[in-house]
């Protein structure tokens, strides 16, 4: 059983709330849900849409073909009617539309009139339409009412909205006969969480014991900060919004130096400003976590849209050479667990760790099993054991692993000293050539330990396939579905997918790819950055790249099409 609903309208018409309520309603009914938002960089006007896909089986991507289009304005019909399936339904306000829509798919409703009758004036047109869409498929009205009540927090507003939903539902039940012959009944299943990638990261940070965050608002990262700021008092956490990203990353470094688990979150443009701080964390061996939610660049680019174009940037950002880790969550669930891992790697190796996501993962909602918190481990790395003899504490002591015990100011007898200049074991600045060489080697030795903790890429599909698709980060759901489609069509295709990218697991990748006959790297960028990285690290040249850089997320159908073009060309 499967359904794909799209809600379209201007910013300010309530597209987002209808989309979210639909996602919630299907999640509550036991469906797997994936929902994404397409919006412009404006507060009012323009064109926005929200897609909600409900499936009986697991789902991790959007789908193009729409079963029900809720068109809150005429423009939404014009822009999206071609995406609606032949047996689909287009819900729109009969009074507001000036065009003639005679085709069977079009289902005119007196949305405005029903909204007024429900007591909310014209404000609840979107809620009436929500009710209508669920009426068309005969969805359980009890679930919808619960979701609406929870969302509007009870009271008068919740009551009016519930009435509006009922009015739309009833009208659709009585008048939609013959359209979209599909009924969605609730499924028996465990209760799942419905959340987006940024919320998963925020929850991961709280579970990992992060107590300090400083960040400067920037789409698509802001909602991490907003969520944490809202929960900070309850969780005993401090969230600071400083004057700029430069300040944010340096505050995080200061807090981590003093002993807190600390993070920041930004997008590519903000990360540009943070880069000198990244080098400072590397030099002073201060563990920090930086979320970089990519959007289409360069410069301001497409501020509300997705891209995977900062991989090369984050791997190489900052001058000089120092160890770091880069993790790129493949899914909402992955975003939670890799956030926990980011904090552990940062503290175990005293390095900056970058969590590389993108707008698509950040703002897409999906259903996941509730995170099992008993599986969360907190590894604070090597800590200084205090003793009366600890006058000899050396923050940057030479060790075989390259990791020196951390002490925190005023938490032991030790004085903790570090410097952005090259420094000696104690942390004082020095220009001595031998010390410099030894200290560089000590820091760089940490790379080997880090590499051992980097998980290999995921493999999906059959062994020894003719064609291997390769991808990274948020495209996992779409790629997996593409492999399913191609296998069903009889193609020998499998998938190699990365969510832990640096230090690059070169040996494992070489072993996995050396016998592959045809390798196509699928990325949301224009220059094939992962393909370049694979060649740099393993010497293996991919057969080709399938690239998308229009700011829009991938779908399985787009990938299948792209592969077919490559194969025939």
């Amino acid at each position, binding site marked *: 059983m499967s359904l794909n609903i799209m809600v379209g309208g201007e910013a300010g018409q309530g597209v987002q709330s209808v989309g979210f309520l639909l996602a919630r309603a299907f999640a509550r009914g036991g469906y797997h849900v994936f929902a994404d938002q397409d919006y412009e960089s404006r507060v009012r006007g323009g064109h926005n849409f929200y897609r909600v896909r409900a499936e009986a089986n697991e789902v991790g991507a959007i789908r193009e073909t729409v079963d029900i289009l809720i068109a809150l304005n005429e423009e939404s019909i014009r822009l999206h009617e071609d995406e609606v399936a032949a047996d689909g339904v287009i819900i729109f306000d009969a009074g507001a539309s000036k065009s003639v829509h005679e085709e069977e798919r079009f289902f005119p409703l007196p949305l405005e009139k029903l909204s007024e009758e429900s007591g909310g004036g014209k404000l609840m047109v979107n809620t009436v339409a929500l009710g209508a869409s669920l009426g068309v498929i005969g969805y359980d009205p009890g679930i919808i009412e619960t979701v609406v009540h929870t969302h509007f927090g009870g009271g008068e507003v919740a009551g009016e909205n519930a009435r509006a939903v009922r009015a739309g539902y009833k009208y659709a039940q009585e008048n939609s006969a013959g359209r979209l012959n599909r009924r969605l009944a609730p499924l028996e299943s465990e209760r799942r969480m419905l959340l987006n990638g940024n919320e998963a990261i925020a929850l991961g940070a709280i579970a990992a014991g992060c107590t300090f965050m400083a960040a400067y608002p920037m789409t698509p990262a802001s909602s991490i900060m907003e969520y944490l700021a809202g929960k900070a008092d309850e969780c005993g956490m401090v969230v600071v919004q400083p004057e700029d990203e430069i300040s944010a990353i340096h505050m995080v470094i200061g807090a981590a130096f*003093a002993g807190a688990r600390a993070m920041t979150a930004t997008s590519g443009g903000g990360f540009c400003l943070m880069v000198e701080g990244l080098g400072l964390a590397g030099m002073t061996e201060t563990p920090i976590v930086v979320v970089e939610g990519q959007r289409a660049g360069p410069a301001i680019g497409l501020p509300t849209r997705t891209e995977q174009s900062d991989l090369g940037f984050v791997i190489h950002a900052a001058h000089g050479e120092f160890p770091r880790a880069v993790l790129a969550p493949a899914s909402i669930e992955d975003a939670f667990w890799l956030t926990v891992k980011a904090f552990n790697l940062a503290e175990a190796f005293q390095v900056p760790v970058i969590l590389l996501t993108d707008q698509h993962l950040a703002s897409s909602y999906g259903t996941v099993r509730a995170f099992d918190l008993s599986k969360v481990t907190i590894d604070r790395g090597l800590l200084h054991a205090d003793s009366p003899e600890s006058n000899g504490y050396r923050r940057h002591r030479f060790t075989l692993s390259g990791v020196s015990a951390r002490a*925190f100011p005023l938490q032991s007898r030790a004085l903790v000293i570090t410097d952005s200049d090259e420094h000696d074991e104690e942390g*004082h600045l020095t220009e001595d050539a031998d010390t410099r060489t030894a200290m560089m080697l000590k820091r760089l030795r940490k790379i080997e330990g880090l590499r051992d903790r980097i998980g290999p890429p995921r493999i999906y599909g059959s062994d020894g396939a003719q064609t291997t698709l390769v991808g990274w980060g948020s495209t996992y759901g779409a790629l997996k579905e593409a492999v399913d489609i191609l296998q069903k069509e009889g193609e020998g295709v499998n998938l190699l997918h990365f969510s832990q990218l640096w230090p690059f697991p070169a040996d494992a990748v070489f072993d996995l790819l050396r016998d592959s006959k045809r390798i196509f790297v699928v990325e949301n960028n224009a220059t094939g950055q992962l393909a370049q990285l694979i060649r740099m690290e393993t010497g293996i040249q991919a057969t080709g790249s399938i690239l998308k850089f229009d700011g829009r997320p991938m779908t399985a159908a787009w990938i299948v099409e792209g592969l077919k073009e490559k194969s025939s060309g």
Partner: protein
Amino acid sequence: MVELAAYAGLKSAWCPGCGNFGILAALNRALVSLGIGPRSVLMVSGIGQAGKTPHYTRGNVFNSLHGRALPVAIGAKIANPGLVVIAMGGDGDGYGEGLNHFLNAVRRNHDITYLVHNNQVYGLTKGQASPTSDAGFVTKTTPHGADIPLSPLALALAADATFVARGFAGDIDHLSDLIAQGIRHKGFALIDILQPCVSFNHRNTYAWYRERVYKLSETDYDGRIKLAAFAKAQEWGDRIPIGVLFKGERPTYEERLPALKIGPLVSRKLSAGNAQKLLTEFM
């Protein structure tokens, strides 16, 4: 009882006669006078000759990047408010590269003390003009003379500072007392310190300052009136006031954080349990 010997640090790389020696001596004396031991102190510095100061005394040290002393100091103070956090750097560091951090740190009133070694010139890079160089100051990078200097004291007041003072590296007793007052002050304390640079600033020398500086404490000046302080901050030329220009009261940033009421962040026992209740809100 803390002795001055507790603050003996490494041998400095400063030029003989550098104003930094006076500032270092005054800082050490201030800490001793307050009975604060090196273990309780975190010194965060920027880059420039002033940025090296923490290495020449004793304490916990974070020598940060150029212009980035304050944000590191702020993060550390929030993580552990029990630390006596002293940020320091030069005029280029604090009023050029780090000006945005300076104004916003003042505005938010973090409970830290900020010492600016203001020699009106770039020393480490050998003699270029700084944001506080006197108008017309000719250097290799400003052959037609420097622009009008900015007034850090007036800027701090405009950002609603709660402690604004100016000291002179050539008067260690007076400066040491100012630093002690700054450390005792609850909130952000700016101490701008006139510091002769014997190598690159042959205009604002010890003798030049000695002819001009006078102590506000020896006049009937009242340091509680902001508008008077603003007027006093404009005074520069034949007579230069030193001392506390303004002292006010406002809750500190750290005091206003509910999360710190249950203790410093550094002492938290970390566990995933905090998230359990939150998970159910998504179901």
